[in-house]
């Protein structure tokens, strides 16, 4: 019995340390960003918002942020449209070489990004697409679209097709049925896919570092150059803002899901 208790204790201790290790960097960055020193001491000796001011006053950072937002929105739209259509086909349709197509659709997540970056950079350089919004949107969409397909096809698999039959037997045509019955049912998964797509683009470093240049840079590229050679303390402020935004987005997505689950549970 004692050994069992000892095992449990060791297990709990290990898990606590692992959990700390998982969240430490995230929670370390937040206080560090309010440092007065450019050496980013921890704990900060004096509180200051100078790195936030530095961010908002530097047009390079602001432009990079705006570019990232613009690219992210286009990527979200494009990958939701392409991905939802493909998910419908993959779950319900018939077409030749199905397994091969599934492999192709998942491949961008599985192939190392360095390879994709190199390959796309080589082609885009010849086509004049480097340092262009279009170039970024195309690559990021390829990387983001699998997440939409995975999310939406999971929803479609569990969707009860009898609801559609019911709608049609009550006189709705195919389009109305899709828009008024199918789409609302899969909407949360489409939204989750869209969120993933946006964040994939907004966070993407490797392909962006290849495609960026003096004419067009994104937020991760700007951060990359602020860490790579010499540490730019502004990165700490940017990191904190990014953390708060992504955590808020995911937390709200989680809450929405929780509410829906509760409503469904009450309805049942």
């Amino acid at each position, binding site marked *: 019995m004692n*050994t*069992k208790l000892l095992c449990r204790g060791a*297990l709990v201790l*290990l*898990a606590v340390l*692992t*959990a700390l*290790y*998982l*969240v*430490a*960097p*995230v929670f*370390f960055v937040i206080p*560090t960003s309010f440092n007065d020193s450019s050496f*980013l001491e*921890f704990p900060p000796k004096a509180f200051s918002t100078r790195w936030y001011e530095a961010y908002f006053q530097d047009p390079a950072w602001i432009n990079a942020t705006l570019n990232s937002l613009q690219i992210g929105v286009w990527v979200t739209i494009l990958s939701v449209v*392409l991905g939802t*259509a*493909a998910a*419908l*086909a993959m779950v*319900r*349709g*018939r*077409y*030749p070489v199905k397994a091969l197509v599934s492999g*192709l*659709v*998942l491949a*961008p997540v*599985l*192939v*190392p990004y*360095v*390879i*994709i970056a*190199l*390959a*796309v950079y*080589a*082609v885009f350089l010849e086509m004049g697409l480097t340092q262009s919004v279009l170039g970024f949107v195309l*690559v990021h*969409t*390829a990387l983001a*679209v699998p997440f939409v397909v*995975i999310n939406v096809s999971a929803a479609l698999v569990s969707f009860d097709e009898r609801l559609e039959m019911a709608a049609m037997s009550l006189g709705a045509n195919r389009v109305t049925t899709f828009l008024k019955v199918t789409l609302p049912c899969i909407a949360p998964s489409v939204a989750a896919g869209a969120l993933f797509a946006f*964040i994939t683009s907004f*966070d993407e*470093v490797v392909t962006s570092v290849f495609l960026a240049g003096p004419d067009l840079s994104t937020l*991760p590229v700007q*951060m*990359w150059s602020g860490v*790579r050679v010499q540490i730019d303390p502004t990165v*700490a402020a940017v*990191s904190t803002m*990014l*953390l708060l935004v*992504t*955590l808020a987005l995911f937390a709200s997505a989680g809450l929405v899901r929780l509410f829906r689950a509760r409503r469904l549970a009450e309805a049942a």
Partner: protein
Amino acid sequence: MPQEAGDAPGAGSSPAPARRRPRILDGWGLLVLPLVAFLLVVFVAPLVSILARSFTDPTTGLDNYRDFFGSPVYLDVLGNTFRISGLVTLVTLLLGFPYAYLMTLAPPLWRNLMLVAVLIPFWTSLLVRTFAWVLMLGDTGVVNQFLMSIGLIDEPTQLIRNQTGVLVGMVQVMLPYAVLPMFATMRQIDRRLVQAAEGLGARPISAFWRVYAPLTLPGVAASCLLVFISSIGFYVTPALLGGPKDMMIGELIVQQLSAVLRWGFASALAVVLLLVTAALLLLVSRIVNIGKFMGGER
């Protein structure tokens, strides 16, 4: 003791709806075409072009591959890549397995907290976390301060720009990818099997290792392979946390391109990395359904 056979939860699948006329391509099927066309142009064509380039630039033939496999310097990079990925996989397993196991035992509130701890890094930018490690592991960083304050070391030890730095950074990135699938596998295991073994006289430890652990094996194997595969293609973390001696193949590709503009050689390296990745993925697909694996959680 008579006992009802436990129904495997979720094993029953709803009967497949009657299929429509057997046709090769139907209306729904057409909807996959835009995405396929898009990926062929943006993703496949560029990959084919670097494959071609690896055989033609600067001279036609196998020169780039001969350079790579003939040079100890480059083979070292390949060796580093496998060594670091193997270590990352090992540490991830050693930390992730007990963590996932404890998640199955913990009461719901604690389980959810543990899940949040796994999801937080999953949700936050890789670059932000790597940046945090750069600060934390530096000579004057928190980790060194802490180790000195408890008297474990007298002067700052180097934790960054070497293998330690790469491991700390990469394991933190890969842990969620290992914990979530292992937890999913472990949750499906019927704990009464362990009780039965103990009831029949097995000591708890041997009941765990001989009954429970083998049942987790498919999930564990798949997690390990996926962690290993993802690790060999890493670029950002090793570039920021590793030293010149720990260069991995991803960094070599970028270096060959940006520093010396050897397009053909960089392409050949990419092809080698791609082939290794593909071979390992083929191995994983023998064990699990990859699509399910990636979308199964969340």
